């Protein structure tokens, strides 16, 4: 009995602590009745808050491009290292997990000179942040993809396909990729969620994205900025919740 009381006390106190800020965001952003309708009206939003619109577009493009670059870099490399260069696996793993121990703010310090060159060659578009973001998501994406590859017999699959005359490109795109679909999907989901929430690098390299524009907006119109925060949060919530529920139900299979 004492255990049941303890349990429900802890759960309800924590529940209040975690729900209160979300409830407060709803209350805060509905103080002005015009805030939410404005968010749903894209032409008016981009006319009234051009910086915000620019940030939203930039973040969506960054998320899509980072997912793409991450997949193009990681999947072939992970497969290739597994099949042909098993000795390099340790090194690849180390490099992929390295960003976990380097705080983003430290990475910015080191990236600043590299980005001086990127600016020189590619211009100062906010889309060039995709390179830095790919580094940021490496640990999470690598773990997801590596777990996916461990769950299937890559070697046999690849040998069978090669034996039937497939080239390496075909092996990776048409044989391996479909078999690790859920791992690739979860890597992409994580990437999107992380990129949508990224602020440090964009703000310190003077680029724009969703979070930078929200922060900027916070100085002039608090209501709208809280509403956008809530919307962005709910989007990330849905993405990650779908991911973790899907991951849970199939735990026995993949890990």
């Amino acid at each position, binding site marked *: 009995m004492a*255990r049941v009381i303890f*349990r429900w006390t*802890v*759960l309800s106190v*924590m529940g209040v*602590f*975690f729900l*209160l*800020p979300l*409830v*407060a*965001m709803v*209350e*805060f952003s509905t103080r002005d009745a015009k805030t939410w309708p404005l968010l749903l009206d894209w032409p008016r939003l981009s006319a009234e808050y051009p910086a915000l619109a620019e940030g939203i577009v930039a973040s969506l493009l960054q998320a899509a491009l980072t997912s793409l670059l991450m997949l193009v*870099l990681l999947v072939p*490399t992970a497969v*290739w290292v597994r099949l*042909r*260069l098993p000795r*390099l696996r340790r090194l*690849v793993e180390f*490099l992929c997990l*390295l*960003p*976990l*121990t*380097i*705080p*983003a*703010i*430290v*990475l*910015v*310090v*080191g*990236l600043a*000179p*590299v980005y001086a060159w990127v600016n020189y060659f590619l211009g100062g578009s906010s889309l060039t942040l995709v*390179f830095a973001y*790919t*580094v940021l998501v490496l640990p999470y994406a690598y773990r997801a993809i590596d777990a996916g590859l461990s769950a299937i017999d890559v070697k046999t699959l690849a040998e069978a396909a090669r034996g039937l005359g497939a080239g390496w490109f075909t092996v990776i795109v048409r044989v391996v990729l479909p078999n690790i679909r859920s791992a690739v999907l979860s890597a992409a989901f994580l990437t999107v969620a*992380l990129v949508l*929430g990224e*602020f*440090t690098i964009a*703000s*310190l390299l003077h680029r724009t994205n969703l*979070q930078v524009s*929200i922060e900027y907006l*916070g100085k002039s119109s*608090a209501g709208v900025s*809280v509403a956008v*925060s809530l919307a962005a*949060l709910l989007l*990330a919530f849905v993405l*990650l*919740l779908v991911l*973790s*529920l899907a991951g*849970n139900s199939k735990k026995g299979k993949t890990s």
Partner: protein
Amino acid sequence: MAEIAADAPQRVASRPRLRGTALLGTVPFFAFVTIFLVIPTLTVVIGAFTGDGGRGFTLANVRALTDDYIIDAFGRSIALSASSALIGAVLGALLAYALVTGRPDGLLRRLVTAAAGVLAQFGGVTLAFAFLATIGLSGFVTLWLQEHGLDPYANGVWLFELPGLTLVYTYFQIPLMVIVFLPALDGIRPQWREAHVSLGGNTWQYWTRVAGPLLAPAFLGSTLLLFANAFSAYATAAALVSQGSPIVPLQIRGALTSEVVLGQANLGKAMALGMVVVVAVVMALYSLLQKRTAKWLG
């Protein structure tokens, strides 16, 4: 036929080179990682020991780390990380324990762990704004309290200082603790408690002599992970604190954006190196404890 015969010796000869061509497949990955991860890391390390003209080896930057204001910033960063890690660890462990006393595959547990997975990632500007909407000067809770005659800010606005940052950080520390500590709690078998009780032990003895020592390495390890997590965080603090630079990441922001004091860039690199050292030490201890935990978790 002749072609194949001519080919054969070449193929044998090229076997050592096969490894070389296999390496070609990893070139894009290594090139990318070199440019955007290895070079930036080296830039920080080398820059920390480089003089202001960009030339020459110097210890001046590292020595500047002992300046009072930088020592203070590191001290406050460590205090903030330690307090939010401890609070997060204790409350997170309680929540995790509340979960394991329930059904292991129940809906509640699945919902809470899924929510914890999401909330542990929740940080940055959005989190700062969530708390501004809650206990900011015109926040939901602040207004409600003031209506009832209580002013949380009667003794000054602490939300933008260390106590406020600790509170906000707790919001992502507790869920992280639940995620990393839950496996250790699951490793404690109910049979051990039954054995303990059947040998005449009571609850207090069970926690201090059996479960406590078993869980200690996992608990300490998780706390260290939380510490590193808070120590590395930047965006939440940056969005919340616009004036002054109480903690190291904000000091680095100052060094990076400062246009008044030239030559601050390498001081920024020295502070960044300091951060890396702290995080590296903490993570090394973490993996050490992780190994001890893994021994009995099996």
